[in-house]
């Protein structure tokens, strides 16, 4: 663990009890910091840092056989796997698909979440507690379960809305992506709404009183004061949504039993899973690395670019 910058007096002998106590305290604090951080540091190293390094290493290896039936052995292959990743049209089609998904679904979801949060924070609503719980309830439904449920709701034969589902094929190749978008929106709107709502509640009410005295109405207060002040919360929800979009797996994988339009490379993560089950671990590792990097860069760029806008 790192040394502390708390002034250390251990070099010279303590002259007064006051100093002795300070030295003891500084040493105790240093030990405490080490104890507080060590468990997380160990777990983070073992299950975050090392796996990432391991994936990078695996992605640089390739399997070589001596003859057709020889024993396989791993040798350094350089960027061979990455060449394959970049030539894999199915993978890039899946990346394009989730980017399109995110470009449509994330703004709709966050727009709704913001609208609901503003309404909850306004004097217009009665029964706020009920709406808060009702909108948040889907968050308690795991992605797999939500996909199973909506899978039934979409199916023409089982749906209680057969008048709609027998005319609109939600599970067809054209619509299934948006059927998934609906499931993801359904699950996460309430969660995002609560994060934005919590930060609305943290705004001191004197600001509103001052604005009212200046003659601002509710819409103006929402637009000019509330929304700018909850931008950090919106950014947070947006980053989590971006990460979630690129990682889509449970919903499409589950819906495969309802829709033949979802193939084994429908989303990037499905492609990773399919490649790993072949099994081609080295290639799957390369997919994972590219995907993690893309997610990281996208979230980071979004975070940085919006932060600049906010401070300007």
């Amino acid at each position: 663990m790192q040394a502390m910058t708390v002034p250390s007096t251990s070099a010279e002998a303590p002259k007064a009890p006051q100093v002795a106590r300070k030295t003891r305290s500084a040493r105790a604090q240093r030990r405490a910091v080490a104890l507080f951080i060590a468990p997380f540091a160990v777990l983070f190293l073992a299950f975050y840092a090392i796996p990432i390094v391991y994936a990078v290493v695996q992605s640089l290896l390739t399997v070589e056989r001596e003859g057709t039936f020889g024993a396989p052995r791993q040798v350094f292959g350089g960027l061979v796997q990455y060449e394959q990743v970049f030539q894999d049209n199915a993978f890039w089609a899946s990346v394009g698909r989730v980017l399109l998904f995110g470009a449509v679904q994330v703004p709709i979801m966050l727009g709704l979440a913001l609208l609901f949060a503003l309404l909850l924070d306004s004097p217009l609503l009665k029964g706020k507690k009920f709406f808060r719980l009702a909108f948040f309830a889907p968050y308690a439904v795991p992605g797999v379960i939500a996909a199973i449920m909506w899978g039934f709701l979409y199916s023409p034969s089982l749906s209680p809305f057969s008048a709609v589902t027998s005319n609109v094929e939600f599970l067809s190749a054209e619509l299934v992506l948006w059927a998934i978008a609906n499931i993801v929106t359904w699950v996460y709107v309430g969660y995002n709404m609560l994060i934005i709502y919590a930060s609305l509640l943290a705004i001191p009410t004197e600001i509103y009183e001052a604005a009212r005295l200046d003659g601002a109405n509710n819409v103006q207060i929402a637009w000019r004061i509330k929304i700018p002040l909850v931008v950090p919360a919106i950014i947070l929800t947006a980053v989590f949504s971006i990460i979630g979009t690129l990682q889509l797996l449970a919903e499409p994988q589950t819906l495969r039993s309802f829709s033949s339009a979802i193939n084994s490379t429908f989303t990037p993560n499905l492609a990773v899973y399919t490649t790993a089950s072949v099994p081609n671990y080295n290639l799957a590792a390369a997919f994972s690395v590219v995907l993690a990097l893309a997610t990281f860069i996208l979230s980071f760029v979004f975070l940085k670019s919006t932060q600049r806008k906010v401070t300007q």
Partner: protein
Amino acid sequence: MSRSAAMLVMGVFTLYFLTPIWWLLTTSTKTGGEITSTVPLWFTANSFGTFFDNLARLFTYGDGLFGRWLINSAIYAGVGALIGTIVAAMCGYALAKYEFKGREAIFNIVLSGVLVPATALALPLFLIFSQANLTNTMWAVFLPSLVSPFGVYLARIYAAASVPGELLEAARLDGSGEIRTFFTVSTRLMAPALVTIFLFQFVAIWNNFFLPLIMLRDQALFPVTLGLYAWNSQISQIPELRILVIVGALVSIVPLIIAFLALQRFWSSGLGAGGVK
């Protein structure tokens, strides 16, 4: 916007959010055949009896596999989130309340950990665990779930705002050790954040799909989500599983809804910590 327009918007969306869950409830009280032959979204004359029949079949099918899945999920998510919360809280607290070299570096590493998606880690974790011959064990799903960079982030922000430095100084003068002060005084002040971290970690583990999917072969080790997924993908061969999947889905979301309702008071106030600042 007028009052009635606002109520109308919220009313329409209440239907959108609750109808699927309502459908799950009403359908759980029907026999396989009744799903298509009776009024959708409503109960039948003998709904009560059918519901308990369905429940009994759910818990007896495949030698009580479903009950096992529930217990497994409770262990993965309950114990995992509890330990994960303590570990994250200790780290976040140290980053907030002590000055030491490398503090910002550690915090930045943790922050970038927030941006690394958990699913991207699933495959390398599988490769590492298979080297150690630990795939297809509970450890393979349990251990990686203990890490919550977002929990550390939340704990740091909350500790910085809610644990006054003077209080720690006073505790020191009283002769209380750092560790004892943390567990007796600071955790109490951080309670809303701790409940929030616990709940969201609990949900994250309960919902985790890729890690168990890739790690586990033995059905007896499955969490409930993976189990229901497996049943759902067998429906075309075993049609009787359909009603079990529906009842099972209902049963599996009840614990989460109860947890959220019971702890609502605490996490609502802790939730703001992540967004504000």
